[in-house]
């Protein structure tokens, strides 16, 4: 049967581990206690939701990332797509360049942007000084207030080209007749853009925004390479907290962090389902 190998992988490495994680989340499973299962029911969940300040801080950061990123990415990508669609010369060249950051791994991107944000010679401060805003130059990643926005900008750098390409594809599928009809009715360029084109792109925009949201809620690698969650947990995300709590705490611990993972899993699923319903009104989430 054609399905067998795939089902083996799927059940052995996805479904089974998910079930084990749920199971572990109700137990204490720590190396210093011999890695033996000790049932504790909902104790971990109570502790996480009730008194774990780091979790709440990390959840806040992840949510901020998930919400702010689409708000920045979507209008920017849409603007760029509309401009390219308006027959700018070398459109193909620009599209190719803008898409490139997506092909690099997070560690590569992380290192490059560590340099960009360097206080003494980084590009960010260089540009600020060049345009006379030198007083705003600062060590972006060392300040708990600016570190998270600085990281969000990096994901914008990576993903805007990607969103732009998809919006551009959607733009090309809009039937020319709609635009011509609006033109005949006397709609000028702005009216055509805001009353015809953007409403027609809405389903694509919503899909992309939700995908962006989910992606940012899982964010791990960039933080791990650039700030490790610091300074003062200013960039800690739930994903980095789970890994730290499991492998870099006092002892190897597979129970408590599993409970965090379960909570986050439920939140991501709940929110993306809710968002889909809210933004698309009964259209199903499609990838």
């Amino acid at each position, binding site marked *: *049967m*054609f*399905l067998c190998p*795939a*089902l083996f*992988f*799927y059940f052995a*490495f*996805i479904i*089974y*581990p*998910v079930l084990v*994680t749920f199971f*572990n989340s109700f137990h204490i499973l720590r190396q210093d206690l011999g890695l033996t299962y000790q049932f504790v029911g909902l104790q971990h969940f109570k502790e996480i939701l009730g008194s774990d300040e780091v979790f709440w801080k990390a959840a806040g950061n992840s949510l901020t990332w998930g919400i702010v990123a689409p708000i920045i990415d979507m209008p920017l990508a849409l603007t*760029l797509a509309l*401009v*390219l669609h*308006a027959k*700018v010369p070398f459109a193909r060249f*620009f*599209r*190719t*360049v*803008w*898409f*490139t*950051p*997506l*092909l*690099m*791994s997070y*560690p*590569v991107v*992380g*290192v*490059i*942007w560590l*340099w960009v944000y360097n206080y003494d010679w980084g*590009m960010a401060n260089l540009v600020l000084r060049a345009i006379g805003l030198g007083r705003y130059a600062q060590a972006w990643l060392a300040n708990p207030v600016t570190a998270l926005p600085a990281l969000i900008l990096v994901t914008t*750098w990576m993903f*805007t080209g*990607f969103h732009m390409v*998809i919006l551009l*594809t959607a733009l090309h599928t809009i039937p020319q007749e709609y635009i011509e009809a609006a033109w005949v009715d006397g709609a000028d360029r702005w009216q055509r853009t805001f009353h015809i084109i953007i409403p027609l792109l809405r389903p694509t925009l919503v899909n992309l925004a939700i995908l962006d949201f989910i992606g940012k*809620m*899982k964010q*791990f*690698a960039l933080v*791990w*390479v650039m700030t490790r969650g610091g300074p003062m947990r200013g960039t800690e995300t739930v*994903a980095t907290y*789970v*890994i730290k709590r499991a492998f870099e705490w006092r002892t190897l611990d*597979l129970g408590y962090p*599993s409970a965090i993972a379960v909570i*986050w*899993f439920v939140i*991501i*699923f709940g929110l993306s389902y809710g968002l889909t319903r809210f933004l698309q009104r009964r259209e199903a989430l499609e*990838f």
Partner: protein
Amino acid sequence: MRVTITRTILMLPVLAYTAFSAGPYLWTAVMSLRTTDEIYRSHYGLPIPAHWGKFYTAWTEFGYATYFRNSAIVSVVAVCLITVVGAMAAFGFARRRYAFRLREPLFLMIFLSVMFPPQIMILSLFQILIKYRLFNTLPGLILVYVATELPITIYLLRAFFAQIPQELEEAARLDGCTDWTMFWRVMFPIALPAVATTFILDFIYFWNEFLYAVVFITSQEIRTLPLAIQFLVSDQYQDIGMLATGLMIATLPILVMYLFLSEWFVKGMTAGAIKG
């Protein structure tokens, strides 16, 4: 006249964004050809003279040959496995002939798991890999990679297989094909364009993957490139010139291929986000 003005206004955001988009990488590319001493004297100087030898030094003395080989093994083996396994499953899910009672719920479940955050699996995968002695081995990493990319691969390929007309299947069968030969001789070749997009998507994901590598690989000699870069940036933070060379080694294979096949890459990378 008006057209020219509009054009100029439109070009401003385009050029500004292009500078933002390409600037950091070009800067790194320039630094990769300069020595760290030169860079500390001036961070934005041109690579004159260009030290191409740095690539050789990084390759032989800084271990990039090993990391590159590890990344290549993992990516190539995983992408071949997933293409075969994924295409077969997608075919099984797509054709009416192979329908059975729980098939659609099963497919829905696989589709939904595209959204799973890796944290929900990673800690128990850690346990499982240790139990079966696959922890800290490349085969273990490959198995995990194949499993995590399977849902999206199956989802994308199924849409393609579902479009192939029923008549073709019947014709192949009349010619005496078994299910197995029909799949490999008729269906798989027809699906090659779709397979190429998932191939690229999966390959880039495997080449760049970081989270599972961080947790499942602990020995230095089997580190993949992303993992190695993370360690090098903390160990040799001062040696900017050599790090920049390393970043080029890690990205150039993909970017050079992208230069020649950009349409295919764009198609592959966006396949997951366009309505199927």
